[in-house]
């Protein structure tokens, strides 16, 4: 049975789909897996909270003031990276580079703060990972977060290096955007850690 071509049904037009790009889906799903990872560490921290028979306890060891400072660094960096992205989209490369470098500096400041905190905890408070359950869960949680901040600082430094050589242009905004998604994620995790670990520790006693 053959039909003349004119009688064949003609398919409807195909509307273009408006959704995330493959790269954006990739980063989004990676971040979902990171949420599952950090949730597990936070669950472990909360599970053992207050179960220690040997000190120091979170309330004794942690400095809310210092943590508040490092938290401010990260929150500010999240705002600044947003403007850096916007600058790149507008094509303002000079502003992009300055804002991007500021984000890196704030990330580095956070890491310095953490280094200072850990130095104090280990040498003065004698809190190590094997000291008690608090040490075990605290260093694991905060350590893995710090590792993620470090990775973010390295990724952003690579972008800055490329930008300094003029290799980051407007059409790379997806790559820059993905790095900033990651950075926002790291900041959000920190806000949760800050509330659960630091504010939680001082909540009763402050």
């Amino acid at each position: 049975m053959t039909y003349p071509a004119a009688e064949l049904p003609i398919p409807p037009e195909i509307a273009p789909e408006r959704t995330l790009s493959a790269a954006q889906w990739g980063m989004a799903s990676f971040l979902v897996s990171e949420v599952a990872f950090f949730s597990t560490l936070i669950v472990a921290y909360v599970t053992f909270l207050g179960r220690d028979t040997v000190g120091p306890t979170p309330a004794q060891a942690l400095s809310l003031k210092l943590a508040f400072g490092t938290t401010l660094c990260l929150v500010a960096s999240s705002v600044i990276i947003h403007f850096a992205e916007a600058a790149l989209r507008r094509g303002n490369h000079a502003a992009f580079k300055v804002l991007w470098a500021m984000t890196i500096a704030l990330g580095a400041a956070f890491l310095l703060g953490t280094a200072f905190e850990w130095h104090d905890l280990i040498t003065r408070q004698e809190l190590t990972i094997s000291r008690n359950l608090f040490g075990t869960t605290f260093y694991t949680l905060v350590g893995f977060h710090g590792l993620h901040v470090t990775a973010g600082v390295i990724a952003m430094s690579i972008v800055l290096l490329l930008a300094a050589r003029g290799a980051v242009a407007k059409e790379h905004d997806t790559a820059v955007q993905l790095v900033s998604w990651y950075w926002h994620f790291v900041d959000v995790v920190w806000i949760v850690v800050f509330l659960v670990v630091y504010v939680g520790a001082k909540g009763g006693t402050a």
Partner: protein
Amino acid sequence: MATVDRSHRLEHAGSAAADNASSGWADALHDWTTTVDHKKIGIMYVLMSLVFLVIGGVEALLMRWQLFYARNDVLGPSVFNQLFTMHGTTMVFFVGMPILIGIGNYMIPLMVGARDMAFPRLNAFGFWITLFGGLLTYLSFITGAAPEIGWFAYAPLTEHTFDRNAGTDFWALGLLISGIGTIGAAVNFIATILGMRAPGMTMRKMPFFAWTMLWTSFQMLLAIPPLTAALVMILFDRQLGAHFFDVQNGGSAYLWQHLFWFFGHPEVYILILPVFGMVSEVIPVFSRKVLFGYEFMAAATMAIAFISLGVWAHHMFCVGMSRTLDLYFAAASLIVSIPTGIKFFNWLATIYGGRISLASPMLFAFGFLSMFLIGGLTGIMLAAAPFDFQLSDSYFVVGHFHWVLIGGTLFGTFAGIYYWYPKVTGRMLSERLAVWHFWLLYIGFILTFGPMHISGILGMPRRIYTYDPSRDWEWWNQLTTIGALVQTPSYAIFVYNLVTSLWKGKPAGDDPWDAWTLEWTTSSPPPSYNFETEPVVHSRRPLWDLKHPDDPDWQYE
């Protein structure tokens, strides 16, 4: 960014073809180890899984040898412990997941009309790190002994106090890095399926296998990282003196069980959902009908993916959680049977009234349907907490999950392999050998795992290396071992068929099954760039539309 990547890939594909032309072992080796082609990576995943399947199978046979007689002592308790640990670990992490990821890797880009996965280099990284994870886990043997912890590694057995070898460290590291590879694969599948479908292929027009791989990947994203975190905790406990699972210092063995099963239960759905997808591709083609209830099937897949994240503690009824938790987890586990039932009835409705061809893929699909049903029913039994109190950690449980993993996952995977082998190699597998493979496996499988239910009900606990003759378990164990021996040649026949058909098989042509999805529009094997021009899709069966321009599917969808 995507366009930049694509042109780069085309160049690479060109040079890979040139390598092949100049031939030589060194060139071929270089080509396969450096490839980022999703098809080659998929093949390597499947080959790796088959090698580990043989290793895991040999471990199982050794255990069956030990259990053949009461008071047998050919292996002894320590070796027996190592064998069941490595058997379970191997089959779940280095056979089950990689073979499904491998088939998905090969087929998904072809089925959604893409030229490769979204991130080809991540894809290659994922494969190699999975392979090295497997090798690392097996290196534990040369540290003196493999771990004696069982595949779910209950604390505090994993603590330094109880295992002073490095076996547990190798085991934990191996699973940790292969888990990172699995996350990479999941990210890749999601990005490819959601971001790289051919024009016109809306979510409602995707091949069904793509739906199941999508939700499998979603489960991997949420289930694997908790395991990664828990493995890190084991390593910190063992190497840095942390106290997560160190009960003498306030650590919690109970926490490990929650963390492990939060991974472990979604894991069994990770192992079955892709198979649901393969069977949903095979059944319509060999019934000559469209898949019945496509939307309901997709929704049921999503429902399974979500519900299965909230049922993990049905593995822990005997821990003594609380009546509330027992009730919740029992009820939640029973609810999974609803979407699974929807799938079952839709498969039956697809077959109903169809022009059924009993070619090898369909034969295995029928094997899947019949056996997975039984495994599902014993699952419902075990989900009822009071029943589980009686049979937890008995051979009934061993019978149940092997029934699901072999009767379900393995039969379905074989259906997929028989279905797609012609596409991958350009040759047909021998149908005669396939029939032998099927019946030996089918009969041997029932003979192996059926009696386990009985010995379990008679009280035989899992993981014991021997038993007393007075318990009347011997006869059932002997049946089980004989069943294993009946199964064994079926795998040999399968591998023989895979290898010899490479050159002896009938040339397959592009579309040997008269199928309907995009992969069959390419040559067999497909060119490295998959599609010369980007295909445009108007219905769920684009190839039907091409073959029947007078009566295309999009008129009715």
